[in-house]
């Protein structure tokens, strides 16, 4: 070992020529030791031949990315910057003679504070429901079920959008609906829940349920079942296996799933409108629509939008830390 190390250093000091000399003596003509001058010149020429800027890999890559970046800048970044600017102007004055003011934000954190709280509350509770109900679902899906593809296919229904979900649930909650008889049998007065917080929360939780299952499932799939067996053979009880093995190892998926559900639910719009009471209908997205497109108070709508965007981005940023680059980052 020592000898070899010494040898390595020797080779860097130029012991090479010497060794090549030895080769030359053995192989005569077929072995060259250094480049003849003309070849070196040729190579120089090849290297310096006018290389157009566009032919560098970096430039070509940027060129291929250009349309995507253009679309993102035009339809996402510039509008968001505009939104911020508009949020600093009074009502719809931005479109005529911009009057700059901070009133919109004072308003948002004053009169609309309850709307913010309502939005965060609904999103938070719905996401907690998803977590509590989704963890066992993900565990069963990953560990015990052979018809996993079928379950996944069924799970796409909520993802067609909250609109059909809310629309369909509306009918489910109707006493005259298809399950009306079932509810009567169970002694549940289902009509009571029609325009209620419970209905809104349920529809929100169902809509984001697949996101939770997806994140926790991905984390659990990476936990070797042998670890659970090992824990069991070491005498751990079921709840100890959960708290000491599964929970710590799927922590990243839990956080990512929760934040993803929370982020989606912050933008909730149609469920309160179709299934909720006026209290639930104070959520930020709905207020933005009402203030902006019904009452033309663009300044206030923009300020609400900026607030919602900041909240959504913060949540996304944290969740991407935990989801191990689910989106290719």
């Amino acid at each position, binding site marked *: 070992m020592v000898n070899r190390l010494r040898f390595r250093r020797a080779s860097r000091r130029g012991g090479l020529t010497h060794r090549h000399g030895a080769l030359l003596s053995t192989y005569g003509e077929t072995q*060259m030791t*250094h*480049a003849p001058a003309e070849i070196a010149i040729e190579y120089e020429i090849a290297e310096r031949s006018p290389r157009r800027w566009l032919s560098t890999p970096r430039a070509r890559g940027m060129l291929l990315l250009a349309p995507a970046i253009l679309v993102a800048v035009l339809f996402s970044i510039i509008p968001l910057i505009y939104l911020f600017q508009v949020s600093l102007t009074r009502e719809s004055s931005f479109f005529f003679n911009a009057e700059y003011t901070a009133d919109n934000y004072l308003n948002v954190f004053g009169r609309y504070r309850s709307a913010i709280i309502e939005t965060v509350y609904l999103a938070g509770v719905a996401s907690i429901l998803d977590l509590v109900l989704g963890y066992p679902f993900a565990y069963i899906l990953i560990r015990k079920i052979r018809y996993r593809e079928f379950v996944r296919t069924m799970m796409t229904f909520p993802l067609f959008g909250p609109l059909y979900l809310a629309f369909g649930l509306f009918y489910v909650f109707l006493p005259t609906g298809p399950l009306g008889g079932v509810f009567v049998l169970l002694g549940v007065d289902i009509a009571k829940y029609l325009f209620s917080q419970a209905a809104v929360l349920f529809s929100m939780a169902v809509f984001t349920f697949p996101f939770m299952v997806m994140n926790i499932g991905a984390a659990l799939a990476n936990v070797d079942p042998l670890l659970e067996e090992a824990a069991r053979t070491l005498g751990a009880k079921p709840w100890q296996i959960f708290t000491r093995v599964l929970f710590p190892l799927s922590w990243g998926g839990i956080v990512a799933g929760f934040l993803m559900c929370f982020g989606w639910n912050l933008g909730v719009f149609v469920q309160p409108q179709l299934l909720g009471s006026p209290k639930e209908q104070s959520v930020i997205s709905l207020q933005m629509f009402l203030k902006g497109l019904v009452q033309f108070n663009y300044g206030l709508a923009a300020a609400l939008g900026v607030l919602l965007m900041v909240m959504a981005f913060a949540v996304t940023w944290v969740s991407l830390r935990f989801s191990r680059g689910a989106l290719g980052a």
Partner: protein
Amino acid sequence: MTRVQLVDISKRYGPTAAVEHFNADIADGEFVTLLGPSGCGKTTTLRMVAGLVDPSGGVIRFDGQPMNAVPSHKRNIGLAFQSHALFPHLTVARNVAFGLEVKGTPKAETERRVAEMLEMVELGDYANRMPAQLSGGQQQRVALARMLATDPRVLLFDEPLSALDRNLRDSLKYSILELQRRTRKTAIYVTHDQSEAFAISDRIFVMNEGRIEQAGSQLDIYLRPQTEFVANFVGDNNGIPGEVTGLVAPGGEGEPRLVDLVAGGIRMRGLDPGNVRPGDKVVAFVRPENIEVLANGHVADAPNIVRGRVDQIVFEGPTVRLTVDVDGTPLKVISGGLERLTLLDKEQREILLRLQDVTVVPDDPAVAA
């Protein structure tokens, strides 16, 4: 058909050099192997010949034409990959036809050529299978057919057998050699497996840390290693540091020149590396299978004959492997033949050894200090 010259080729990634000052002149029809441990730069060198990596310096020539500025798809080469790299969405026949199709070869000609190639690798009946339906060996044979279909100037092999199991490796390496002999194409073969290199090459380049350690025939590399690295990397070896005591007068025309030395307290006579004088520090190498266990009755007091105590005996079937302690220097000894059986009860006993074919490699004095 094609002489391949690599003139002072180097490849640097930032401050680290993957290949430095690589020079080789490969004759038309020659089968050359680049042998070395992983990370020695052999694959990078091959990929530079293939045009998949741009050299940082130097010139690559095919028949005298510089190829540096020629993109890979215009070099007309055949490259065999470690994984067979068959296109999974195309049938065997379409895989073999690929190179012809992209060059716009007429359909009839393509079909004839594909059939001929598949026949050559004995897979004529598999034309319409998908690659995934073939065994590992069959896949690699299709890859060979695909690479030969376009009649390339140079064949390049990037460890094509390393993903296969041992039996397949042994039979396929002779198939590769036979195909190369039959098509008389220049071939460059990269491997870390010395038995592969020894079996098929006309010439072997042993590489280490981006440089050529030694180039030569199998026998040169095996019997006359010129550096410590080659002596250690190729085959098993005993390396014993020592000092030259004198040059032996040449015995006659064609006789090897010898030197006397003392290494590990043992007086030996070894091959003269050609550049040592008395007093120089050297390392003496002697292969375990070149150490003969002598019957009792020999005189210990002669060059290359030493007495040692057997520390360990491992019976390996056709051979017996001994570890012998000679005045504190452990020597590995491999003994074959019937006499191996007489050694089995020699543990902790003294035996007499004759060291044959001792090679001598100079130890760099600048570093020894």
